[in-house]
């Protein structure tokens, strides 16, 4: 699966552009890390890459086809391959179970054992039947990450995935990211802080400054990945 952003501009208020003429291609499997200061446009960039928000100008090509001119059914089909996880956990009324299974339910899928494995791995087993608003910030964040991981998307976009998580969960997540990448998936993460462990495994570092992609460096420290 390949996603290409061509001359992307984005504005929330139609006065100021928070992304300016961004060009980017995600083609090779691997980990892509989007770094940059707060407010530089990382979240906006990830939401455009994840086909959630439509750019004000420019085009998003999925396997060479302009996504935003496609029909609703085709859009829906393509979106199933890309999952985005918000920086602040997005929760719906109801239990943790209801929330964590939301993606599966929307797709009409069932994956019993595997789901439980992830849930236990991130320490959510004991809270499965609690109302989701009773979770701590870290648990809520972990829940949204599990909700995405169990969908096994071709492209997984994680927005500030490590905030709120404790050290153990950060390590688990980095392991999971590594495994997805090894299995040929694409993982994109946006972070304002570059973890050392990530540096070692990331294929590309995309630096966003003031709405522009400043540098695109290919890190080749670990050529086996």
């Amino acid at each position, binding site marked *: 699966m390949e996603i290409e952003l061509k001359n992307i501009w984005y504005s929330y*208020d*139609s006065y100021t552009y928070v992304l300016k003429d961004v060009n980017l291609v995600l083609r090779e499997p691997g980990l892509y890390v989007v770094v940059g200061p707060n407010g530089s446009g990382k979240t906006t960039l990830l*939401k455009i890459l*994840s*086909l*959630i*928000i439509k750019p004000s100008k420019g085009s998003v090509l999925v396997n060479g086809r302009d996504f935003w001119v496609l029909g*609703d059914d085709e859009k*829906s089909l393509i*979106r*199933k*391959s*890309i*999952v*985005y*996880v*918000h920086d602040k956990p*997005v*929760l*719906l*009324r109801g239990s943790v179970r209801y929330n964590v299974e*939301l*993606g599966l339910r*929307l*797709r009409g899928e069932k994956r019993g054992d595997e789901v439980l494995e992830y849930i236990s791995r991130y320490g959510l087993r004991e809270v499965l039947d609690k109302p989701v*608003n009773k979770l701590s910030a870290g648990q809520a964040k972990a829940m949204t990450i599990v*909700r*995405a991981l169990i*969908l096994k*998307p071709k492209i997984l976009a994680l927005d500030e995935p490590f905030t709120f998580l404790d050290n153990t969960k950060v390590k688990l997540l980095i392991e999971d990211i590594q495994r997805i990448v090894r299995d040929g998936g694409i993982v994109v993460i946006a972070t304002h802080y570059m973890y050392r462990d990530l540096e070692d495994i990331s294929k590309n570092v995309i630096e966003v400054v003031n709405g522009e992609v400043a540098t695109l460096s290919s890190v080749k420290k670990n050529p086996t990945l």
Partner: protein
Amino acid sequence: MESITSVTLRSLYISSIASLIAFSLALAISIALSSLSRRRAEMVLSIFEIFVGFPTIVIGVVLYILFYPRGPLGVLGILYTPYAIIIGEFLVALPIAVTHMFRYVYELKNYVRELVLSLGGSEKHVVKILIRELVPIMISSYLLAFSRAIGELGVALVVGGGIEGYTNVLTTAIALQTSLGNYEQAIQLGGVLIAITATIAAVLKVLGEYVLWRSS
């Protein structure tokens, strides 16, 4: 003299219809506004905000002029009927229902949309889940509208006239009994009204937790 039960039932009936109409329109307005840009939507909303604390007696007088037999809508012949009170109470309750609901609907629509699309759902799923998420705010918005409608006097008195057995509601009955010096009756009627609005306030408080947890 009319029994308290019959006045209470009439009050409940008139106010629940008025607030049901107000609430339904408020939901439609909120959803319509949520596809506007933030700034435009806020502009429309500020019009409703002005009317939230609007004196109900003024609304009553405006309707009186409209419904007066030789007035512009006089042919309808609804002055001093329950229908006139329903229309008046609907107008009294609408602004609070809209302002209570709008921002929540606006935020939630984008919130739910982004979540559902990010997990591979369709626009149809967005609507389904949005409605599910809106249930608590819909109930609380309805109850707020109802509370405002049942507790107002201006409209009921001016366009209803407090006719016993026909348009007499709790607030007009209280006013009437007080002016007749039947204080005990007036206090009993007041007790019923307070019991109704206090119950609603309690339900709203519980619902508030469901409505507000997201923002905390």
